[in-house]
């Protein structure tokens, strides 16, 4: 059964149609990626699925529950969260406080402590800087913090919006390694990326989004070898 099932999703900004009815699904245990150029509607798709921006039509079912009209904070409580584009960490709060915000819905102190330890184990840099104001972290560290913050609710489905954006190549590799590792540990992942080759490499399945419509879909390997995708997104 699909963990996330999006059917005919439509989103408008005023009269401008940003998503013209897209359908896709993410099955439990998969890494699915959505690739597409700037302005294709990737971030719009991510934000509308999770309830930050309203949907005009269509339906979204997560874990067997209809979440089409559910507000974002309730969707998050069902176990779906997102690392937004541009990381969006709380700049004025410390690293520790950011992680605490990530665990806002976690009432179990024991769970919080465990998750905090595992974050600090995975990212020793964050442990060193736990009391530092997050706005003073480097771009790479901020991405690590944004991902860790999202993991604090132990999401079943983690959505990542352009996690490699603006990072040095070595950090990009590291981010993709982390995604693979999270996947191995049982998190289902929906990835939106401009870095199509990297994304397709680790994806079970992928969709191509073009000006508000899904134009292609297939396994990661299929899309990576498709002529259209190679020409448009992989540089020949």
């Amino acid at each position, binding site marked *: 059964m699909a963990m996330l099932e999006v059917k005919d999703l439509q989103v408008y900004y005023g009269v401008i149609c940003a998503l013209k009815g897209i359908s896709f699904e993410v099955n439990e245990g998969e890494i699915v990626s959505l690739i597409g150029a700037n302005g294709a509607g990737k971030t719009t798709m991510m934000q509308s699925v999770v309830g930050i921006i309203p949907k005009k039509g269509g339906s979204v079912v997560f874990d067997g529950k209809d979440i089409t009209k559910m507000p974002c904070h309730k969707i998050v409580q069902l176990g779906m969260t997102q690392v937004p584009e541009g990381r969006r960490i709380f700049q004025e709060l410390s690293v520790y406080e950011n992680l605490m915000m990530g665990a806002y819905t976690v009432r179990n102190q024991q769970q919080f402590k465990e998750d905090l330890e595992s974050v600090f184990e995975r990212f020793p840099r964050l442990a060193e800087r736990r009391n530092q104001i997050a706005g003073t972290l480097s771009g790479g560290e901020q991405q690590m913090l944004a991902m860790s913050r*999202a993991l604090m609710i132990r999401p079943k489905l983690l959505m990542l919006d352009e996690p490699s954006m603006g990072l040095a190549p070595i950090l990009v590799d590291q981010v993709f390694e982390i995604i693979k590792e999270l996947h191995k540990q049982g998190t289902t992942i929906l990835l939106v990326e401009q870095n199509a080759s990297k994304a397709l490499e680790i994806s079970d399945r992928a969709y191509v989004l073009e000006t508000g419509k899904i134009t292609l879909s297939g396994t990661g390997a299929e899309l990576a070898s498709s002529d259209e995708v190679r020409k448009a997104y992989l540089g020949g």
Partner: protein
Amino acid sequence: MKFLETLLNGLSSGSTYAMIALGYTMVYGIAKMLNFAHGDVIMVGGYTLFVTAMTMGMHPLVALLLAVICCAILGVTIEKLAYKPLRGASPLAVLITAIGMSYLLQSMAQMIFGSADRMVRLFDLGKINIGSFRISAYTVVTLSCSAVIMVALSLFVKYTRIGRAMIAVSEDKAAAQLMGINVNFIITITFAIGSALAAFAGFFMVLKSPPVNSTLGAMPGIKAFTAAVIGGIGSIPGAMLGGILMGVVESFAQTSPVIAPFTVAIEFSILIVILLVRPSGILGKKRREKV
């Protein structure tokens, strides 16, 4: 001695401004709107004190409690009825709605209580003598109460779950939602706290001078808004600092018969100067954009 007395008077009226400025700044920080009806919540607080303490003869502290509750409910109601439907509308539409709400509250107060002043005499506060030094009990009460309230508010914001959620919402609404924070609930809480503080401000104001009328909150509201902008709108310590500064300047300006008529002009001039030198206010943060 004269200097110290003037300073203390300034600090006490400044802390009243600070209480009001906190309401402006917190609502701006969280809901990103200027609630120009905020000053009129003070006035509603004043009339609540009049009805409960004077008409119904309740103990002043009970009356204060009721005023705080009334104002909190009023603030939340205003937000739900007038501002919430405009979430996402242009800032100008929200601003005009807030101004309209301000006039609505003033007119309603006039319809109910008439335009004549109503006297609210809660306590007979005398002067306290410390040696040759005389200080009015009003100053002591206002200063100590507002100090306690401001410290409590700072601790609340810094150390409670809801307080931290308020910081998160003020910084990034969408990211806060992704943490599972109910933004509407946080906005409600913010309006409740801001309006409750306005009730305290109203209480301090009637302690100082008993007449209550429908424009009771108008001038203090504008001055406190100015104070919030001077301190850096959106910043809680900024509102406190701006309010205190406003009160102290006012107090010292009024000691000189030559300068006194220009007190208000001086206060607003400070705003202009601050905005020229530091557009984000004294403690306001410059937005860092990191892509």
